[in-house]
């Protein structure tokens, strides 16, 4: 199938009212949820997922991608107006966004955040379209040993960079891998930790685990320490960003977008480090570097470009290799699976219409983001006023309905509650939840590929080193572990020096 044929096939799938409506609704839901202090883009995607079960796969995935895109931008609104980042990725936006708001230029800061987000989003989507197909065609040569080493590398980097400590991240990933062993054995079909309960034979429901880990702990944290969100909402002022200001910041926006694309395409790094790196690079190169941190528009542009540049790029490993780049793409991979699709290189052959449909949808989502974002900026004060004492009970009820709807099974609701407590304990002990969830998804793939490789080789581990691809991933894994350990030692030394 030629490139034009693929685009036409994608267009035939998404060129209808329902698809665009789903995308529009997704961006709107994401922007609103991202803007609510206490909600996050991850929670928004997780809570939207159950509503997509009755939809066609492409419509469902477009809706979720819309929520993802909207959620990342939405987080910048409270970051600028009330100094409370809606998502961790917006933390860098606070540095210059809030000082601008204090000067009465919140409208300017938000306008620049929106334009930078949309530009970075577009660049990131184009990178996805350019690189995902190329990477997938390369990955078609992968067999079980190559996939095993790739997944091992992904897990190493995700466990290492998702939290402050490699070991706590590793423990989280171990727990996720262990939980993934529940159910019938993949080869022999014997019971593993099922306790004879038929509800557990298919393994624990992914959505119950996901919502339990990411939504319920927030409710429990609110029960533990009930407090309204702090911070005074600043008025927008009548300042709008001008084309001249956009042009002045354009270099930083493009640089930030490429930083986002590069870091986003590596599994596990995510949007927050990208935003900070983009911000620090902009400060280093800017003639106004002394103004950074005091209300510099270029700082807002750079950090927003950095975090939105990640959004399309995280889909590169997801679509091309079937490996989620971050927590949100881990949820989206679950959505693919719920709808009977398995992301990875074969999808570029078997479901090329869906792939190109998604590409078209993603490009359109950047335009929707521009429109919805400009409305959301003006309507933020209504969103910020949603009382947390009403929001969180609502989230609890929504979680129960959503999880029950997956299999019409009350057992799943119980799994969600238990996972909620596990997630809360992890949160309280600084154990990151992201490696847990990603390991829970990748665990069966890791084991399956390992056992297939062993079956192929007659149980000889030499097959795991059979060619340049496996050596490449082993090398990357070793380098990652060394880099993370070195970073840990350096951080410990710095802390000791400060003490």
């Amino acid at each position, binding site marked *: 199938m030629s490139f034009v044929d693929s685009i036409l096939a994608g267009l035939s799938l998404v060129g209808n009212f329902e698809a665009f409506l789903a995308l529009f609704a997704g961006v709107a839901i994401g922007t609103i949820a991202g803007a609510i202090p206490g909600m996050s883009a991850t929670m928004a995607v997780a809570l939207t997922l159950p509503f997509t079960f009755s939809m066609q796969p492409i419509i469902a995935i477009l809706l979720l991608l819309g929520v993802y895109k909207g959620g990342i931008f939405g987080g910048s609104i409270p970051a600028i107006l009330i100094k409370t980042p809606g998502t961790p990725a917006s933390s860098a936006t606070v540095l210059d966004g809030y000082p601008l708001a204090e000067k009465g230029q919140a409208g300017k800061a938000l306008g620049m955040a929106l334009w930078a987000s949309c530009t970075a989003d577009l660049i990131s989507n184009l990178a996805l379209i350019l690189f995902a197909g190329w990477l997938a065609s390369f990955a078609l040569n992968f067999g079980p040993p190559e996939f095993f080493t790739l997944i091992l590398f992904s897990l190493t980097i995700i466990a290492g960079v998702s939290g402050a400590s490699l070991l706590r991240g590793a423990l989280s990933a*171990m727990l996720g891998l262990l939980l993934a*062993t529940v159910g019938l054995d993949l080869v022999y079909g014997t019971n593993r930790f099922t306790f004879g309960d038929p509800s557990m034979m298919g393994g624990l429901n992914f959505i119950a685990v996901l919502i339990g880990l990411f939504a319920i702990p927030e409710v429990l944290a609110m029960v533990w320490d009930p407090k309204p969100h702090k911070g005074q909402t600043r008025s927008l002022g009548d300042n709008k960003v001008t084309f001249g200001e956009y042009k002045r910041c354009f270099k930083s926006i493009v640089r930030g977008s490429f930083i986002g694309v590069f870091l986003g395409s590596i599994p596990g790094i995510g949007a927050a480090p990208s935003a900070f790196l983009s911000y620090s690079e902009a400060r280093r190169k800017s003639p106004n570097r002394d103004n950074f941190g005091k209300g510099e528009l270029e700082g807002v542009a750079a950090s927003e470009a950095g975090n939105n540049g990640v959004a399309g790029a995280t889909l590169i490993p997801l679509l091309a290799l079937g490996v989620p780049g971050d927590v949100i793409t881990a949820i989206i991979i679950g959505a693919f699976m719920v709808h009977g699709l398995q992301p990875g290189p074969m999808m570029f052959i078997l479901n090329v219409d869906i792939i190109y449909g998604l590409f078209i949808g993603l490009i359109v989502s950047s335009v929707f983001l521009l429109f919805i974002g400009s409305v959301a900026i003006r309507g933020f004060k209504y969103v910020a006023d949603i009382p947390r004492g009403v929001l969180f009970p609502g989230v609890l009820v929504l979680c129960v309905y959503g999880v029950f709807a997956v299999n019409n099974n009350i057992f799943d609701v119980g799994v969600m509650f238990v996972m909620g407590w596990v997630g809360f304990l992890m949160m309280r002990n600084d154990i990151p939840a992201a490696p847990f969830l990603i390991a829970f998804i990748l665990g069966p793939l890791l084991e399956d590929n390992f056992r297939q490789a062993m079956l192929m080789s007659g149980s000889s581990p030499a097959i795991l080193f059979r060619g340049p691809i496996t050596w490449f991933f082993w090398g990357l894994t070793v380098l990652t572990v060394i880099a993370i350990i070195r970073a840990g030692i350096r951080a410990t030394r710095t802390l000791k020096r400060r003490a």
Partner: protein
Amino acid sequence: MQNLHRQTLIGIVAIIAGLFLMLVAIPNWVSSPSNVRNIILSPVFWPYTLAALTILTGIGLTVTGHFSSEDLTPAPAEVSGGYGRLLIMAVVMVIYMFGLPRLGMVWTSMLAFVATAFLVRTSHPKTALICAVCVPLVLYVFFAHIASVAIPQGNFVRLP
């Protein structure tokens, strides 16, 4: 010093969990066919490997926790009534789950909404009460009539 103990404590819990898996859980609750020739292909191989890695991670956490000066999230002992509220929330969750098939999802959700709003000390009790009635009903309409999910109706009041 307290922070160091917490990292060490996490490590000790991980070691105990790994040992429990190796000595009790895997031998009793993972079944393996007797004719598996190679341990690597056995259903117990992967759980044993993960349990061993958990123990290793636990040892690493225990050792590094002893020497680390990293600031973990402080234990907020100052949050008054925190544990009590969490205990009540746990009870609410248990009642919620067991109430679903008996009272029905809509009515149980209304009660759980009110209980949670009370626990998080809502400053908008009237709004919470209105939402407690409306949110479960709206969700019922969506899931039961649009997504065709068989929402539990309970034994008492059935909704259309």
